[in-house]
């Protein structure tokens, strides 16, 4: 049976299913119990599973995440919600020095299976400290998986896997996707981490993205179609592990690559993908792979300013034209 639900409903259902199918699962965060989550992602879960398993807690990101690690090490499966991705900066030690490393450091005696859920991105004019896109940091932290779904169905399929694997997973949601709709089957099959998906077939160029950027790539693709450019769109779905094969396969017939993310381009994960592609698929490339990322400034408040620095479908389309030599490259 096929249903249509919103992205945030998928997040809620995914967590509900995890809570009901595994006693080791519990949730920690702010405003997620009685209140149901500032984005409604946990609505009704406290009533259904009890306040002890859907735990509201004081504002204390470091110890929230650190306690998650401790609980996971003792056999639980915490879901820790960091309300805005920006606040991960308040809990980096727990994630980077503890969650990601305990298994390795302990010679595999410890495991820290936990899902760190967070949402980020621009579009709601929350200002520079509530609009960042920071998943790129975590590619650089061995021990963590990085997951970033783009559809309700992927949310459920990827979450199912994320809560079952034996290592910590950073589960990144884009705020602007919460109200988007999509169909889901019941049940949704688990999606293995490290398997991307082709969202659109095309001949001339491959555009790779995650989360919100996938939809923007599809919009750009329709735009470019009118210009006679055929775009293939790949949704990586997870950054760690990375489905490089899928990208290389696509390049074998398009020979042109654009990597799109809302994260600031400088130091963003597109650099990792481009470097991998260049090293392992150089001969497939007819032109330099390009990145479509945001400009190197904080996200400003005013919409006119945000539009100027945030990577969007217009930038993706422009990068495609540049990659194909239709227009000349300019940063």
């Amino acid at each position: 049976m096929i249903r249509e639900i919103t992205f945030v409903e998928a997040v809620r259902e995914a967590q509900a299913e995890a809570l009901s199918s595994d006693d080791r699962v519990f949730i920690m965060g702010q405003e997620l119990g009685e209140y149901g989550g500032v984005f409604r992602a946990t609505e009704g879960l406290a009533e259904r599973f009890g306040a002890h398993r859907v735990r509201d807690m004081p504002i204390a990101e470091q110890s929230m995440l650190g306690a998650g690690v401790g609980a996971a090490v003792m056999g639980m499966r915490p879901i820790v919600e960091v309300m805005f991705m920006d606040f991960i900066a308040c809990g980096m030690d727990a994630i980077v020095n503890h969650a990601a490393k305990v298994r390795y450091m302990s010679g595999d005696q410890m495991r820290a299976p936990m899902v760190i859920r967070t949402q980020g991105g621009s579009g709601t004019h929350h200002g520079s400290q509530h609009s960042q896109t920071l998943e790129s940091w975590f590619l650089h932290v061995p021990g963590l998986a990085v997951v970033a779904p783009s559809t309700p169905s992927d949310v459920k399929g990827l979450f199912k896997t994320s809560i079952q694997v034996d290592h910590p997973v950073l589960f990144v949601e884009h705020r602007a996707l919460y109200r988007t709709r999509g169909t889901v089957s019941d049940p949704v099959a688990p999606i293995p981490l490290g398997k991307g998906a082709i969202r659109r077939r095309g001949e001339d160029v491959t555009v790779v993205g995650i989360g919100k950027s996938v939809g923007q790539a599809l919009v750009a693709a329709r735009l470019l179609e009118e210009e006679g450019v055929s775009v293939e769109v790949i949704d990586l779905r997870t950054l760690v592990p990375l489905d490089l094969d899928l990208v290389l396969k696509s390049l074998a017939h398009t020979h042109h690559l654009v990597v799109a993310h809302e994260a600031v381009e400088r130091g963003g994960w597109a650099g990792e993908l481009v470097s991998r592609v260049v090293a392992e698929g150089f001969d497939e490339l007819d032109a330099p792979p390009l990145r479509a990322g945001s400009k190197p400034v904080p996200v400003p408040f005013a919409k006119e300013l945000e539009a100027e620095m945030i990577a969007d479908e217009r930038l993706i389309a422009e990068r495609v034209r540049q990659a194909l030599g239709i227009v000349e490259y300019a940063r």
Partner: protein
Amino acid sequence: MNHRTSTAQTVPAPGLSDQDASSRGAAPDVRSDAELREIFRLMYTIRRFEVTLERAHLEGDLYGPFHSSMGQEAVSVGVCAALRLDDVVTSTHRGHGHAIAKGADLGRICAELWGRSTGYCRGKGGSMHIVSMDHGFVGQSPIIGGSGMLATGAALAFDLSREARVAVAFMGDGAVGQGVFHETLNLAAIWKLPAVFVVENNGYAHSFRAEQMQLNPDIATRAAGFGIPGVVVDGIDVFAVREAAGAAADRARTGGGPTLIEAKCYRWRGHNLGDAEHLYRARQEVQEARRDDPLDRFRAATSDLIPPGVLEEIEKRVAAEVDGAVRFARQSPPPDPRTALEGSL
């Protein structure tokens, strides 16, 4: 290390003249006529500002998150009334009142909320990031706990440069759960910094009550652990706040070190505009709390000190001023998009 033992030379902060120890004196008498009116003007300005902008926001005229400080006017104004122009204040996501009380320009605040080029931050900041260095409003940090870090640092700068200035951090009760709150209190304590930490305990951290966040809900008692004074004050009474803040500021200014002030008040509105308040508190609770209005308290306390008609006069002027500020914001041009790429590295 405090200024009396410091040997560092004087370094004026940008745009602010230095003062030496001799200029340290007692706080001005709060009951002077002019100051009474000024206190009311500021409290009423905050009230009027929040009411007006909330309406404009609901009408879709401005965008972004909006955290009303309605009901907490006495804390903002009481504290800032105890400060000098070159003392500084740091603030939180709920900072409109703090900015207004510290003397920032209404028009430029409005323009910032409207995301216009004439705003304090040229549209880059918005409602949660107002700054007016000229008024010693060194800004909001909507990262819970952030304002304390910044004020501690500002106080450290004053200490090192032997300036008789005080840094005040406004914080919410939610900040008490955050580790950095404790770190900063401790630093300010051991270094005897000229800092005042004002926790506005408005009963809620979004939907969360103090009792849910700590077994010991008396925030002021935290001070003891750091060996500094902790004071509880009625945050509805602007004069009580003014007195507590004045004592703390004098203490800080004269090398006595920091004070933690817990101002008990109540958050009249939802956490932010659009908050699903009904999920965690009854309308009746709010109505009852609102019966104790800081503006009414002021009127009652000053009824025999202020001739009839004076406050109404002020209200009229303020109303016009707020409307003028809104007009200024609306009529201001949006920022030039190219400025988005300026000012970073």
